[in-house]
């Protein structure tokens, strides 16, 4: 369609059809005030502050909802417009308590700003005003609906974006209000405390409790950081005043979360200030911890490590790395362990995800989620299997909703429970628990039977199809219906919906609804994607989001027993040589123990000393007592953490570390996006950034490491790692970069397997459905806001958000 020409305030502008007047004006940098407009919400047109004069139109026109027409002549600040805006503002002010002196929003309140802009001081219209009582019954925020101007933004965010549907308009006319049904309190609603309403309210009606009385917006420094909870890696602005974090706001410009957060990101940061934080190195003496100096702690560690090495050899030392460690920390950690002579470094949570990781490696040659978070919103069909994203990855859930709402994506939800997405699903498959593999196989078989598979893609890009076709042919719809308990027609319709979409995505989870056959499920899903050619293209892929913020990163950094950074195998001579040269040490050829080995064999593993960086295996592993006994029996247990965890309490030496907001570092999210998190505040007491502790200790151990800061460490990572080679801190500044990014001018990689799978050809695997005994269907941990993210839980239980857990469990 051809462009549309129009004039705004005497300036000519050309825009595409469908552009609203507001958007056209913004192209010309003309500022039109808005309250109720939000680009991600359905057009509303309620507040009317954005009205403009369109020549020859009968009335003023709301610019935010009106598309341009050819030849329009528009005035955005004519006298008529200004009069109307003044009246609207006066009317709002007349029914709004003017308590700006104490209102938390002062300084960033749009009502205030526009009144200032149009010289509206107070209202000439006095009369009846709202008198509603405050809702401050919940832990997180206060709702003062007397200040509400009824723009409806919060309702839109809550219903359209989040899908919580906690609030809506109540009553009509002059006494209209916004709130939970029947004007209950938020506490008793379906609110999930994502904070989206708070972050987008143009006035001071919604205030997080944590910021009450903490400071004025202009006194607050914004520090861009990365949320420390799940693998999405939401970008946040830490609100900092007087060396204290006083709040969190989402970053609108980030392609990862685009102004969205979930309760963990919005409210879960207060653990930073917890009184349980470690503030000095501790050494256990006669069963009790005593504070010591860093020198003393390091001295002791060096002595004992050397003693163990001498007595039991290099392989007696094991390093366990937390998936919450920054890339720089993880890198130094594995470098330290390897420099000490073994490859005994691994991560516990990585093991949690191992079945999925291995399956993806097998099928595609890369364990990462194939496509970007951003792309999900553009896909044509989404199959959600065995994932409850609203619990595990709410921000990804918002994108699924967006795909349905804005791109008209067909949504297929296969879950044994009625999860929130069921409300908007086109196909809901409430399958019997544990039958997902049969379901997915039958979909694949039906797609082949109907000839809906992508033959060209299969021929060119895959292997193993013929065997797969033969083996899967037993999975008839009829059989699947019996096994899953679903109707045959529903299965067929779902298969078609997925297969006919031009681009389709599959979303599953590696850590929720987890069945004993989760590796098989991932393989089956990979087959389905291969079959329909939904890989290696934009918005067509397999989404298996990680549960921890840097699970991707610590694996990239080589905190794994068999590989160095960028999955370079320890078995390859030239790899070992490369690292040996760079590090000035020799690299052991023998792959290290995995964490599974260690905890399975306990004492028999021969491990005598362990360095645990931010992990808490005592609560994470299934066998708490055995794990504790094994750890207690070690000759040396060093735990570096921010709290005295169950594991730390068993340690000989505890090192106090800085939390994410107290140090700079990079984290790689589940879509391989390397993101820079800045330092906002000083760590408490004697605590130190993890990288600095490791670097210092290395010095004590006699290694010649010289880092001025994380930036130096990152440069070293980049120099040794193909995928990270083109990345540096400068380039990470705004949006981060998705690896592979091999060169300084490489834009990063939005989706994997473009033209070629990491392993060459995509591989079909034959996976069979195995009926499982009920007790095998171990669903990981609890339901509620927290799934089996042991480490996230470590943080959240020192936060107000823990109250949600208590409520839900």
């Amino acid at each position, binding site marked *: 369609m051809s462009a549309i020409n129009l004039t705004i305030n005497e300036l000519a502008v050309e825009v595409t059809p469908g552009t609203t007047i507001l958007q056209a004006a913004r192209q010309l940098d003309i500022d039109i005030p808005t309250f109720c407009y939000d680009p991600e919400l359905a057009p509303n047109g309620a507040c009317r502050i954005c009205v403009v004069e369109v020549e020859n139109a009968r009335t003023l026109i709301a610019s935010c909802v009106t598309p341009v027409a050819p030849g329009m002549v528009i005035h955005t600040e004519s006298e008529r417009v200004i009069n109307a805006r003044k*009246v609207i503002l006066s009317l709002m002010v007349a029914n709004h308590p003017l308590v700006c002196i104490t209102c938390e929003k002062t300084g960033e309140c749009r009502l205030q700003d526009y009144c200032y802009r149009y010289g509206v001081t107070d209202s000439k*219209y006095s009369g009846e005003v709202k008198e509603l009582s405050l809702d401050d019954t919940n832990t997180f925020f206060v709702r003062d609906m007397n200040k509400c101007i009824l723009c409806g933004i919060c309702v839109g965010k809550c219903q359209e974006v989040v899908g919580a549907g906690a609030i809506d308009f109540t009553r009509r006319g002059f006494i209209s209000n916004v709130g939970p049904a029947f004007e209950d309190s938020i506490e008793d609603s379906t609110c999930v405390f994502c904070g989206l309403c708070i972050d987008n309210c143009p006035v001071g009606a919604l205030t997080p409790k944590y910021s009450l009385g903490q400071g004025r917006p202009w006194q607050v420094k914004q520090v861009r950081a990365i949320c420390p909870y799940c693998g999405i890696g939401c970008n946040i602005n830490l609100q900092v005043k007087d060396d204290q974090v006083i709040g969190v706001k989402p970053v609108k410009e980030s392609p990862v979360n685009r102004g969205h957060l979930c309760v963990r990101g919005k409210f879960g940061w207060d653990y930073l200030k917890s009184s349980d934080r470690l503030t000095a190195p501790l050494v256990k003496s006669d069963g009790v911890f005593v504070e010591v100096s860093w020198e003393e702690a390091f001295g002791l560690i060096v002595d004992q490590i050397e003693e163990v090495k001498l007595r039991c050899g290099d392989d007696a030392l094991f390093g366990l790395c937390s998936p919450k460690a920054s890339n720089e920390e993880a890198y130094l950690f594995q470098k330290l362990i390897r420099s000490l002579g073994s490859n005994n470094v691994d991560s516990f949570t990585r093991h949690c995800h191992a079945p999925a990781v291995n399956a993806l490696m097998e099928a595609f040659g890369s364990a990462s989620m194939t496509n970007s978070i951003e792309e999900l919103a553009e896909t044509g069909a989404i199959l959600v299997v065995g994932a409850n994203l609203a619990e595990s990855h709410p921000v990804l859930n918002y994108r699924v909703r967006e795909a349905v709402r804005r791109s008209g994506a067909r949504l297929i939800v296969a879950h044994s429970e009625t999860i929130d997405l069921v409300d908007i699903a086109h196909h809901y498959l409430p399958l019997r628990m544990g039958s997902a593999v049969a379901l997915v196989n039958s979909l694949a078989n039906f797609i082949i039977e109907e000839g809906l598979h992508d033959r060209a893609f299969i021929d060119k890009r895959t292997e193993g199809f013929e065997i797969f076709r033969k083996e899967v042919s037993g999975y008839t719809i009829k059989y699947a219906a019996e096994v899953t308990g679903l109707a045959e027609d529903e299965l067929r319709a779902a298969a078609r919906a997925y297969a006919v979409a031009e681009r389709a995505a599959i979303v599953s989870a590696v850590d929720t609804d987890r069945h004993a056959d989760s590796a098989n499920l991932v393989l089956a899903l990979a087959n389905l994607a291969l079959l329909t050619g939904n890989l290696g293209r934009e918005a067509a892929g397999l989404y298996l989001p990680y549960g921890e913020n840097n699970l991707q990163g610590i694996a990239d950094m080589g905190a794994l027993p068999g590989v160095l950074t960028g999955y370079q195998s320890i078995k390859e001579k030239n790899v070992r040589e490369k690292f040996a040269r760079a590090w000035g040490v020799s690299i052991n050829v023998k792959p290290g123990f995995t964490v599974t080995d260690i905890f399975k064999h306990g004492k028999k593993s021969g491990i005598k000393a362990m360095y645990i960086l931010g992990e808490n295996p005592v609560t994470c592993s299934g066998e708490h007592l055995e794990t504790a006994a094994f750890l207690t029996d070690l000759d040396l247990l060093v735990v570096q953490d921010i709290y005295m965890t169950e594991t730390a309490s068993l340690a000989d030496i505890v090192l106090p570390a800085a939390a994410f907001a107290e140090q700079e570092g990079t984290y790689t999210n589940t879509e391989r996006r390397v993101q820079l998190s800045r330092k906002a505040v000083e760590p408490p007491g004697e605590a130190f950034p993890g990288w600095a502790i490791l670097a210092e200790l290395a010095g004590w151990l006699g290694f010649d490491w010289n880092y001025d800061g994380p930036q130096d460490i990152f440069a070293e990572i980049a120099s040794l790692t193909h995928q990270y080679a083109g990345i540096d801190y400068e380039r990470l500044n705004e949006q981060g970069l998705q690896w592979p990014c091999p060169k300084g001018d490489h834009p990063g990689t939005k989706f994997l397997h473009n033209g070629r799978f990491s392993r060459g050809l995509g591989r079909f695997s034959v996976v069979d459905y195995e009926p499982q005994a009920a007790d095998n269907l171990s669903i990981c941990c609890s339901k509620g806001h927290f799934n089996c993210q042991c480490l996230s839980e470590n943080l959240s239980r020192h936060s107000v958000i823990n109250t949600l857990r208590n409520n839900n469990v």
Partner: protein
Amino acid sequence: MYEKHLMICGATGCISSGSRSVEQALVKELENHGIRDRYRLVMGGCPGFCEVGPILVIYPDEVFYCHLTPKDMVELVEKHLVGGEIVERLLYKGPDVAVPVRFYDSIPFYAKQKFNVLHNSGIIDPESIDEYIMRGGYRAFTRALTIDSLTICEEVKESGLRGRGGAGFSTGQKWEFTNKAPGPKKYVVCNADEGDPGAFMDRSILEGDPHAILEGMLICGRAIGSNEGYIYCRAEYPLAIKRLKIAISQALEYGLLGENILGYGFNFKINIKEGAGAFVCGEETALLASIEGKRGIPRPRPPFPAQSGLFGKPTTINNVETLANIPLIVREGGAAEFAQIGTAGSKGTKVFALAGKIRNTGLCEVPMGITFREIIYDVGGGIKGGREFKAVQAGGPSGGCIPTELLDLPIDYDSLNKAGAIMGSGGLVVMDESTCMVDLARYFLSFTQKESCGKCTPCREGTMRMLEILNRITGGFGNPEDLDTLDSLAHSIKDSSLCGLGQTCPNPVLSTIRYFRHEYEEHIEEKYCRAGVCKALFSYKIDQERCTGCRACVKACPVDAITGEKKEPHEIDQGRCTHCGSCIEKCRQDCILITRVGREADVSN
């Protein structure tokens, strides 16, 4: 075959004045005479003249009986039906006729009327599809089945028909937009929400000629390429809903609805949806939302329903009266005939509901372009009780008032808009000097203020503030600035509100300020309400010269505020008087005067 058809008005107006008991008495009387089966008795549609109801019309004799009571049936049956003699006593005999007259054509109320959409009302049995067909019904639709869809749109455009639901948009054009909007699924929606207080033209059509609506919708469906329609009808219209349901089942039975209609491969289905009751649900986007099961709240346009309407599909939404015109237009030569009636910009007829201080209240259908004077004096029979005409409110709560100076204004869309009123749905409320224009504006605004859905700021907050100012003025607390504030507020609300409700609801205020500014000024500056309506702004006084001391007022006063000896002039205790006005009604000497508070009388009632 029946000997005669006895048409009793079975519309809501006459039912409330007792037509059901008249019918029962008639049946009983016929049975008493054993002649029940000779007559076809029909509770028919509204002949409009509600003022004189209950009404019974006898065909083929063409006799119009009015003001009937059940008792009258004895005489009527005996004399007219058995005896073949007209009962003169029960004929129409208003002050506008010299002798009692026997049929429509000689009743002045009907003289200037032109029946298009009401042409079946009161003539046929609304529950009989055969009678509808006998009067030419469904012929336009069968013709529509044989011609091209765009030709139908074109004919409707040529007729000049404009929407009767308020905005007056060209119906043919609307159909053409929907016809041309892409997509296989489209809807026809009939707006039968009729929310204006006092309006009942749509109800009369629905009750009196339901098949006309179905036929209009079918033709529309053909014209825009739709196979499904909805009638959104006020739940307060149970009779209309019942008759629509009957009509739909009859049409289905006759194969005029359903699949492959008359073998032309055209399918059409009609659903009835009962309205939720809010005035704003008559606004088209709110109405569509309400059918979809959402909150009935307007949304911005564009997209217009023709592009994206019901369930996001292209939709034509038309008013009842608009649709009732369609069969007449789409019959052979109908468009040209239709276009001959009316003015250059407004074609055809319009049904109005006459109310207020007018003698002949009720429903009338007149050609567009008729003047207010003709409607009020010729059709309406002038002002009740011989009082002076003051103004007429046209277009309901969204309309404006027309003062004496403009009595010769022709009634059409454009003249009305220019005068600050609107055609609206066709409500005409006539006022005499006992109406306070400030109070009138306050009354209409209090209606719209209550009905504001609350979505957009100017309407939600602004109507409240306007109402508060008007309450202040009528309560005696007006300030000189109030008029300017009202005026600027009213203009901004009109200019910046989201939907038609907000965009028009200041009209009564603006038009009364425009034509009756002095009344506002009197209220504000002199604290005086000349009409004696705003209780705080006048006092009653007894004309000492004329009072005969008859004590009628003393008995009428509920608070014992009137004292005086018998045969001596009485007096009103101002401290006690509540301005209820009971005494005025009882005083036979017309000597209770409305005076400025605390001042001498200068205006008598």
